[in-house]
């Protein structure tokens, strides 16, 4: 295979971006391993992390094959730089406390589930097959993170305060999920991937409903931080990649 057309290039970039998104979020969640608030929840968080890393691998594999230059999933994960990663900024933000992690997770899951639900109908099997499989997992993710929004928002005074604080901090970030990049616009125009602008309304509906039940307030700040999807990241991604890629880059010719 090779990237012969504009469509191929767009599809390649999309698959790569989907992989980046799942990888960085999965990586962040994996940082909780061994440090969760109770053993059962440690297992739950790492399960989600494993799902996301698994998803990443299927996207990277498809991207690499489409590109046809012999790159592997590990070349894509370990040997690209910050400016080449197209994950949204939301997923690279630090875990913070359990509240920040779960609020970040919920805001992302609420989008992810809509994207996959639409993408499973894609005429392109590369997208559709992956979306069908991922949707089974993400239906669980969004249920898990929604439940925690309720427990934190409507739990104790402290949990409510922490959840609201996290929400206030994270609120400007999900906006970029609904702004299409060039390749997203091209593919959506062809009906191959969802039109992300159309996902904002159902996302907001679900988010508002959960926040209301959780007795949390929607932050008033309407500013949107965008850039991750275009390779303009927060300072956090540099550190994430430095750690993640360090060993692989130290011995670039090694097989593991």
């Amino acid at each position, binding site marked *: 295979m090779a990237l012969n057309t504009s469509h191929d290039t767009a599809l390649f970039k999309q698959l790569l971006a989907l992989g980046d998104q799942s990888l960085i979020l999965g990586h962040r969640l994996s940082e909780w391993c061994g440090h969760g608030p*109770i053993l059962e929840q440690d297992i739950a968080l790492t399960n989600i992390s494993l799902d996301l890393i*698994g998803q990443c691998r299927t996207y990277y594999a498809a991207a690499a094959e489409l590109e046809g230059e012999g790159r592997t999933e590990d070349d894509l994960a370990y040997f690209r730089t910050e400016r080449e990663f197209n994950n949204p900024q939301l997923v690279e933000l630090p875990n913070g406390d359990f509240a920040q992690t779960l609020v970040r997770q919920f805001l992302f899951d609420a989008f992810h589930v809509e994207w996959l639900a639409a993408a499973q109908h894609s005429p392109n099997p590369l997208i559709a097959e992956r979306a069908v499989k991922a949707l089974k997992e993400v239906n669980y993710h969004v249920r898990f993170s929604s439940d925690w929004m309720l427990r934190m928002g409507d739990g104790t005074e*402290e949990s409510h305060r922490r959840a609201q604080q996290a929400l206030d901090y994270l609120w400007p970030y999900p906006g970029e999920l609904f702004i299409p990049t060039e390749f997203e616009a091209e593919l959506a125009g062809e009906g191959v991937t969802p039109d992300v602008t159309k996902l904002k309304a159902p996302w907001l509906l679900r988010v508002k409903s959960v926040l209301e039940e959780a007795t949390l307030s929607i932050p008033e700040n309407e500013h949107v931080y965008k850039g991750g999807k275009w390779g303009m990241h927060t300072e956090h991604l540099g550190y994430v990649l430095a750690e993640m890629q*360090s060993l692989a880059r130290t*011995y670039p010719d*090694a097989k593991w």
Partner: protein
Amino acid sequence: MEIKRLEDKFQKRIDREERIEPKDWMPEAYRKTLIRQISQHAHSEVVGMLPEANWITRAPSLRRKAALLAKVQDEAGHGLYLYSACETLGIKREELIDALHTGKAKYSSIFNYPTLTWADMGAIGWLVDGAAIQNQVPLCRTSYGPYARAMIRVCKEESFHQRQGYEIMMTLARGTADQKAMAQDALNRWWWPSLMMFGPSDAESPHSAQSMAWKIKRFSNDELRQAFVDKTVPQAEFIGLTVPDPDLQWNEEKGQYDFGEIHWDEFYEVIKGNGPCNRERIAARVKAHEEGAWVREAAVAYAEKKAKKNTEKAA
């Protein structure tokens, strides 16, 4: 007199290889020793997550990253099965965790060593899990039912752990010169602590005799250690690595390996709390528990609010 009769009946049940279940009569000492052993095992699984979790974010390939994450998650699950078995003996998990955090309860000494390179992931899976398996398979027939059943579950999942570790070592040993050196270095650091995992010679081990009589423990420490050495040395040779023991030698007469003296003073120092990572391991567990308190409290508060709403609705 009554107690003596009950103890005799109990011992007869043990001798007949009958399983003891939670509600059966048991000597208080049996119950206490089981709580000690099962909880120590559970604590080991949970603390044991930390040295390996240390390399998840730096795993050098996506396949290794996922496999390591799954392995560590399994260990959390094993801890959970074992706490669960322990709770059937009339003790709460909170009490067990408190005992761990305050240093009253022990966990396997091996987890107080640092994981310095990626090759340590291979060494731990191969040697530490290998040693654990040696210990665990016989425990599937231990006299206390919930413990035996938990061990059966653990053993089913454990074989992937050791294979994964050995495969990492094999890949490194057959890789670049740097990778081979990394593998040999890890073997050099983990070999002796792995032998120490089986515990001192039974003559020196305070609990052994009674545990054997009650079929909580099925083989002696030395027997298990010998079996481990005999199994593992050929595995090292197969991938071209050298076991760091100049006294290691095949004994044709006995049909087993002779091996060098273990430096038990190191073991006792680590047990006492002076291993390289004792303080870090406990600090990490205490931190997770303390920082998690508000999360656990929130869940309880929410559950109570919901239950109240439901009763009000039903009324």
